[in-house]
């Protein structure tokens, strides 16, 4: 059955019949009620308010996820293991770690990662006398808590900063255009503390890259990252500062 009823030349009502329903006072009263309803509409029913709230919530969520991503990156750099490619050969046996030489610590070490200037923070390690345990383990030391530290330059962040400032020589003899800024470099610090492979990101020119290569080659060994009392290879991000002092 159709939704529509069709009529041809339908007889229309007379003016008198139509005017029976005419009532302007009624229209004014109803209009006043609509005005009142609009004015007293609960704020949560206001479309504009709801839209604004939706936008703010969306922005808040985006901000939250970005912060979570940054935390994730921090955790990855702290605990990165052998999945990173290492060019130089690594001794098969880990000679750095033997059960009897691991120093137990009292407090769990919380290492924070900073990406400005250097990639490490100093961690304090307290040594304690070994304690005998009732276990059947062959080693005589017992670790109350596990040591975890990030790789760091000997002397810490400040030492790395002054090392870079002292050793980076701006390649003034280069033909390329001047550059002032910081170049991001990821360095693999191996278990031994030696600098392994590294990646230079967005170097402005070859002369700058060459200088970075030179400084890295002459860099002293780092202190490697320790995870659960074991030295592990990790990647650190170092910013190499260049300043063109010209005319």
């Amino acid at each position, binding site marked *: 059955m159709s*939704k529509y*009823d069709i009529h041809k030349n339908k007889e229309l009502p007379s003016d008198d019949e139509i005017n029976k329903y005419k009532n302007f006072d009624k229209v004014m009263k*109803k209009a006043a009620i609509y005005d009142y309803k609009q004015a007293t509409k609960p704020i949560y029913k206001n479309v504009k308010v709801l839209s604004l709230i939706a936008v703010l919530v969306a922005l808040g969520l985006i901000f939250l996820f970005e912060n979570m991503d940054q935390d994730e990156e921090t955790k990855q750099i702290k605990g990165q293991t052998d999945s990173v490619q290492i060019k130089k050969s690594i001794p098969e046996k880990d000679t750095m770690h033997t059960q009897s030489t691991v120093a137990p610590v009292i407090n769990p070490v919380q290492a924070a990662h900073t990406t400005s200037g250097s990639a490490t923070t100093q961690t304090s390690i307290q040594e304690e006398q070994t304690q005998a345990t009732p276990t059947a383990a062959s080693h005589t030391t017992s670790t109350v808590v596990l040591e975890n530290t990030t790789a760091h330059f000997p002397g810490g962040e400040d030492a790395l900063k002054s090392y870079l400032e002292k050793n980076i020589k701006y390649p003034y003899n280069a033909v390329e255009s001047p550059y002032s800024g910081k170049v991001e470099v990821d360095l693999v610090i191996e278990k031994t503390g030696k600098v392994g492979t590294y990646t230079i990101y967005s170097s402005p020119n070859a002369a700058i890259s060459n200088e970075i290569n030179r400084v890295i080659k002459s860099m002293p060994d780092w202190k490697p990252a320790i995870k659960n009392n074991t030295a592990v290879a990790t990647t650190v991000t170092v910013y190499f500062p260049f300043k063109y002092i010209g005319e």
Partner: protein
Amino acid sequence: MTLESKYHKKPEEIEEELHWIQKAKQNPQHFAVLYEKYYKTIFLYLFRKVNDMDIAGDLCSEVFSKALSTIHSYEYKGVPYSAWLYRIAANEANMHFRKSNKRETICIDDTSIHLLNEDLQETNDENVYIKFLPQCMEKLKPDEVVLIQWRFFENKAFKEVGEIMNMTENNAKVKTYRILEKIRKWMLEMKGKNNE
């Protein structure tokens, strides 16, 4: 005289309406002038759709109350105030049919038949339309139904259809002819089946 030349609201008339709209914004009592002017038009439009005097009366009252309560946000765009009223009336009628589940009435007259034949470039007898139009309407999308209603059941000039539906006159023409192509095709099929 074609429908197109028949619909001709003079600029002076539209400007005079603006004067009353502005007065009504200050004092609702002045809305009575517009109420008097368009009451019958809107009432009959609604009556043709709902086919009931009481319902038409109620809906008509709703249309003008809502128009008055929103007069402050009415923006004058050089089109007659009737376009705005028709829009509200069409919405009220739609709401009524959604709530009541009643059938909508299509009222056609000789002008409608003439217009349909002219635009379809056919020479159909009125019985063809009486038989097949409701079925064609069922197949159309809601916005297409509205366009057909204004053009062929309310016999509006394309200029006025455009004003009511907030599109240009040309746009209204183009869309209408596209819909008519569909209707022509369906009617051919239906006529064919009917003859079997």
